[in-house]
């Protein structure tokens, strides 16, 4: 029952979040377009980090990547 309640809360939270997102005009995306707001701000470091953690940790890192929100996907 606890798991069902938690899942329901999670789904409701995600639905609320999706609804709360406000479309941002292209001319208002200056901060979102900064390289530091990208999915991976430094791809050269990210490549090595993935290599290192892949060898040193048992965790699996999600590989699918969305955009940075700048409208430059």
């Amino acid at each position, binding site marked *: 029952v606890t798991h069902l309640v938690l899942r329901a809360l999670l789904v409701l939270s*995600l639905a609320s*979040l*999706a609804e*709360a*997102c*406000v*479309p*941002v005009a*292209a001319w*208002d*995306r*200056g*901060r*979102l377009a*900064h390289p*530091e*707001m990208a*999915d991976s*701000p*430094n*791809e*050269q*470091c990210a*490549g*090595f980090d993935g*290599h*290192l953690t892949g060898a*040193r*940790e*048992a*965790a*699996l*890192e*999600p*590989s*699918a*990547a*969305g*955009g*940075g*929100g700048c*409208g430059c*996907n």
Partner: protein
Amino acid sequence: VAATERGPVRRRATRAAWALVALALASLARADERVAIDGHLYLDSDRLEVWHPHAGVQIDLDEELAVAASYDADVISAATIDVRTAASPRGFVESRHGLGVDLTAAPSSTLRYGVSASGSFAPDYASGTASARLAWEDDTRTHTVAVAASGSYAGVGRVGDQAPVGDAWAGGASVAWTAVVSRAMVLDLALAGEHARGYLESPYRFVTIHDALDPTGSVVVPESLPDARTRGSARARIRIAPTDDLFVRGSYRFHADDWGVAGHTVSVEAAAAPVPELLASLELRCLVQRGASFYRGRYETLPDVPTLRARDRELAPTTTLGAALRLETRFAGPWNGEARLFLRGELLYTRLVDTPLLPERLAGVVGLGLSFER
């Protein structure tokens, strides 16, 4: 396999660095869109040194199609506690080479997909990976959904053996949802799963089985792990730009597998750009992990030898703390483009629980990279 000496490592590293510089300059002369070269040096208290050079080139074939290629290597000098107690008392120097190609298509402003392939080759190991990905953005550019799938094969052996000891296959998929919450905030959620099957042990790792009643009685047998492993992870992340020159990101990740490993990772990064040409960032990271159900620091089961026995410390209960500092500068170049130079330093402290020979490990990483873009 040679004895561990600093001379051979330096010579190999120098040759690899010159090869990368030549590749980068040749690519730049061919009017490429982006060229990147970088190198990372990893050192830890378990006497492991890794020099990791990397070079990558990306070319826009036209407005919709881009192709990329990359090369990386690991020049490894290891005299770790595992090597000293099981494989070679003197350690070894070894190189791994990796190649990758990638093709990305963007048929519209809101749709992008691509495929990639990579290979990794070492004297005792060869692997290949193929993957495909797709990302779709809605018309208001508020939501992005991305999916990716990959498959890989690895042949594992020992240096000097005629044939591989075993091979392993793995298939995985992940999905991510990114949402623009406001003009200064982005949220994303990602899920990933992977199933691996085959020889998942290391042929170099051996486990000592002790007799609980006789302190002098013991046998040494090869590590033995299950032939299949399914693991997954979920990550939530937030990126915020409270001002035009300050950027903060935080993430939480949960990971688990059917061997009993489960863990939590939290990371926070803050970056400041006091002037447009300069950026400094500090990242803090903490990983806490429960070990595999069959992992023991010491097996005392003689005369019985357990079917599953692990020496891999990454399957032990661990806590890792990390701090990374990155400095980055951007400047215009005479080729009508931009250059970016970064310097990065990182410290990683790992507390390994139930690992008598190596209770903790301190590692340092230094990275330096340069990229040209136009």
